[in-house]
């Protein structure tokens, strides 16, 4: 008996010592889904600048949904460079990253020097000098935001990209429509086209230099392609009936569109050089809103062939068409994520019309926005955000939501009803 006991004890001892010596692994399964705290310190010498560069960076990072910038009044200190940083002060504020910098005049423009620090690791991650003319200060700030965002997330920043959108003002016969292009934060807007008739569906060429859009200026819908630099434009489709929903192929040589010249709206692909048309759909349903897969091998479109609107994928090589959405009875205006692994779309739920994301492999659909009348989702070129049109009170405004729905915001606009946003590709 005793020897049995001894054996057991010995085994227990062995177990205990093994437990202690095994490579202990602690599972961490919970965390805060809040954005990462960062501080963007006002740039030393920044008072002399016509733009508050640190504020622009602060706002960019905040809107990304990835970061929660520390309010300035909570800063105990305003270091201008890495060697002035007292990490303990920032740790006490639970700040994880810190952006500091300084500004000075250089010739007719400015010289901005910035550094990024990992506060908890007490490491300098990045430092650079940027020069800018006074009219380019916001652009320089967006560039710095891009560098900071990429250094921390490994995802290319999209703060230097642009958005196109359509506005309308007035009522009845006094309606005035306009097509605008602005920075991704809504600032710096420039009018591209103005008309007394509706303008719809702006779409960026893959090089970011042209817009295709639908204009009713001849009182019938027609598709135009306009160069942004020169303002030069061409009417490329004005068949009888609907000429709608232009979408550029990734190589920029073809435009997919919806045409009703043969009866119901059908999906066509036009070779822009030759204007040759290829018809992709042929049925008695409405087929519209084409959008190219990032690899250019297939197209997404909306069809009501099953009764209500649902998204389908047309494979260009085989001609096969496959239904992709099955959640609920309304899924429309699909757009691929840049990696081609997910769709962003408008889904009707009991809450209303909302921006949703569907994972292509699992088929799982998740609603992202919290508004009720959303339209026209358009994905940022880095895939982290979706911009869309929605209603605020009685007017149309632009909203944006992170690709996982964690953060959302409204874009400011001073131009009446705003609709049909389109996020540009990366510009450079």
């Amino acid at each position: 008996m005793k020897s049995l006991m001894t054996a057991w004890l010995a085994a227990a001892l062995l177990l205990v010592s093994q437990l202690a010596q095994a490579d202990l692994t602690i599972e961490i399964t919970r965390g805060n889904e809040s954005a990462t705290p960062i501080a963007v310190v006002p740039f030393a010498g920044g008072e002399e600048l016509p733009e508050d560069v640190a504020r622009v960076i602060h706002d960019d990072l905040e809107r990304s949904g990835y970061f929660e910038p520390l309010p300035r009044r909570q800063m105990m200190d305003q270091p201008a460079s890495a060697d002035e940083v007292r990490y303990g002060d920032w740790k006490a504020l639970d700040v994880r990253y810190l952006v500091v910098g300084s500004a000075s005049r250089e010739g007719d423009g400015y010289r901005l020097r910035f550094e990024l620090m990992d506060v908890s690791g007490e490491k300098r991650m990045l430092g650079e000098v940027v020069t800018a003319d006074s009219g380019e200060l916001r652009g320089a700030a967006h560039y710095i935001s891009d560098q900071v965002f990429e250094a921390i997330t490994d995802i290319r920043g999209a703060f230097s990209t642009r958005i196109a959108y359509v506005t309308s003002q007035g009522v009845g016969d006094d309606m005035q429509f306009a097509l605008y292009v602005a920075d991704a934060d809504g600032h710096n807007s420039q009018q591209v086209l103005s008309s007394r008739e509706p303008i719809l569906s702006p779409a960026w060429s893959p090089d970011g230099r042209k817009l295709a859009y639908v204009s009713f200026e001849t009182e019938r819908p027609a598709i135009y392609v306009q160069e942004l630099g020169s303002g030069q434009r061409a009417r490329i489709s004005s068949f009888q009936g609907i000429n709608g929903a232009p979408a550029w192929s990734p190589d920029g040589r073809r435009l997919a569109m919806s045409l009703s010249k043969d009866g119901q709206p059908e999906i066509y692909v036009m070779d822009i050089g030759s204007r040759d048309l290829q018809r992709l759909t042929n049925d008695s349903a409405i087929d519209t809103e084409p959008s190219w897969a990032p690899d250019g091998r297939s197209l997404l479109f909306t069809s009501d062939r099953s009764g209500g609107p649902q998204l389908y994928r047309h494979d260009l090589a085989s001609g096969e068409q496959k239904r992709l959405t099955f959640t609920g009875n309304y899924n429309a205006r699909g757009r691929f994520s840049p990696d081609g692994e997910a769709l962003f779309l408008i889904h009707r739920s009991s809450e209303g019309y909302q921006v949703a994301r569907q994972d292509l492999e699992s088929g799982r659909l998740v609603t992202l926005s919290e508004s009720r009348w959303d339209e026209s989702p358009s994905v940022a070129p880095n895939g982290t955000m979706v911009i869309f049109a929605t209603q605020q009170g009685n007017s149309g405004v632009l909203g944006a939501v992170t690709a996982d729905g964690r953060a959302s915001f409204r874009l400011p606009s001073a131009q009446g009803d705003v609709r049909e946003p389109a996020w540009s590709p990366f510009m450079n």
Partner: protein
Amino acid sequence: MQRLIEGADERVANAQQGQQAANDFIALVRQAVEQSWRIPPNVSSGATAEISVRLGPSGELFVAEISSSSGDSAFDRSAVQAVEAAAPFAELRQLPAGVQRDYRQFNLRFRPGDVR
């Protein structure tokens, strides 16, 4: 023989006590790290990163490094930062002296449970 068993008894009791203190320490590390972990957005489901941690004799952080990457550098960095922000783990000193050394090195496996 009897003495040996008594001695063993005592060692088992000590070991159990030690194990209890160690469990408390592990729970504390987990809680502190979870509290300071800011999970970045758009994390793919199933993302897992392992951070190898080495502590000094007073629980101060010597090293927190990625031993197994999630493939998502923002996720990896958030995990390292969570450890750095949760440190030091001064409670290490409350462990029985004999086992403190065993708990100065461990792994943390970061795997969000309900991120969509």
